[in-house]
């Protein structure tokens, strides 16, 4: 399990653990948190699952496609990622994730 803290757009923190193997996007959605649209279903095609990630450990670097899609969001910042491209792995350090503002 991976420990997650998700800060939604209203500023509320959701603390929970998600199983390894799936993506961060799937974990957020499975938790029933409203704010993440993820319209392309996690195929790195749309940038509607933009989040800011503070990881206490290393994350796999982003692909060129993810980087390019993030160039299209209005509030790209340090830590900007597409949640569908972050794979949760067992034993991973906890993640603190803030859902980015709506486009």
């Amino acid at each position, binding site marked *: 399990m991976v420990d997650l803290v998700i800060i939604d757009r209203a500023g509320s923190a959701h603390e929970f653990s998600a199983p390894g193997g799936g993506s961060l996007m799937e974990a957020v959605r499975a938790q029933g948190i409203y704010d993440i649209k993820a319209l*392309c*279903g996690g195929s790195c*095609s*749309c940038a509607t699952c933009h989040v800011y990630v503070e990881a206490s450990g290393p994350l796999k670097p982003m692909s060129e496609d993810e980087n*390019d*899609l993030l160039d299209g969001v209005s509030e790209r910042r340090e830590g900007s990622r597409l949640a569908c491209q972050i794979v949760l792995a067992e034993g991973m350090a906890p993640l603190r994730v803030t859902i980015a503002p709506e486009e």
Partner: protein
Amino acid sequence: MPEAGLLIVGGGQAGATAAITLRQLGFTGGITILEATGAPPYERPPLSKDYMQGQRGFESFLIRPAAFWAQQQITLLTNARVAGLDAAARTVILQDGRVLSFTTLLWTAGGTPRRLTCPGAALDGVFTLHDREDADALIARLAFPRRVAVVGGGYIGLEMAAVLSKQGHHVTVLEAQERVLARVAGEALSRFMEAEHRAHGVDVRLGAQLAEITGAAGKVTGVCLANGERLVADLVVTGIGIVPQVAPLLAAGAMGGNGVDVDEFGATSLPGIYAAGDCARHRNRYAGNAWIRLESVQNATDQAIAAAHAIAGQPKPYTALPWFWSNQYDLRLQSAGLSLGHDMALVRGDMASRSFSILYLRENRLLALDCVNNARDYVGGKALIAVGTPLDLARAADPAVALKSLAAA
């Protein structure tokens, strides 16, 4: 008869999004979703992609976890197919005879797949791909290599051809037009995709009019084309579009024809009755304000959000830029805008590199673009469509010049 508040007819992408949005907006009234099938809201695009390949289980395609709806005080009635609507009495009648009342109605019933009408269309082995049941029925027949005739060379047909050929099935695509993707893409992309499918062993037949599906003992054995040619096939999969499901609405007096007509707030011509998604015909600013229907996740979502705002008393018009995506083999296709009415198509980049874009322009302004393995152009192009400034064609065609940088030019 219980007071139903808002009734949402159809629990697909649009219906689910509207319900979620209303709760986000603080709408506290009753919300009931009537879904004709037995499934809670899920994403359909993976049916012809990941789901068909068995890569991800059905649970991961749920728009929200099954328990979410009850937690949000959203009543989800499955196996509830609407048969009729009385706009004045504010009631709907279900196929099983139940009558439900509403204060406000949102129609997000989408469409039903267009079926073949040729002889043999009812044979065992003819499939369509619209919902999970369709996908499961087809998957059950794919345990060993099959000869599959895919009818229709649109996105669904081509995605199916890619998935099935990857699994080792022998696939023939029958496209009635002279090129694949004829309805949605320019010729350059059509030719590229045709070549890609052929390189993967798919037999792409253009100008191929299906005359008959042949069978023996009630099962498909092949197809017969209008030119008399016969092909052996074990299975036939159709991807020939949808028919918008709006008959009860039109019968109740709503304006429409090919779908139901809505304004930019999702309102139909009937008071307090809204519609969104595949079935909603609307004036789209990216189509020169022409009346169109869009069959896409983007449209279903954004139109549903607009309708939800109107229903919540916080109107916000639907003005979103249309976008689409498709995955076939190792190709990621991303499109933005609508190419309707373009007077020029420019290829940006080397098609042989399998990473390029096609720009659709009208009077040198970017209307739309199709990007293949090129997220950078997709992102830059979206901004450029929105800005609408005339482009320097030489620079626009030069892949070394970022599309983004042309917005300021």
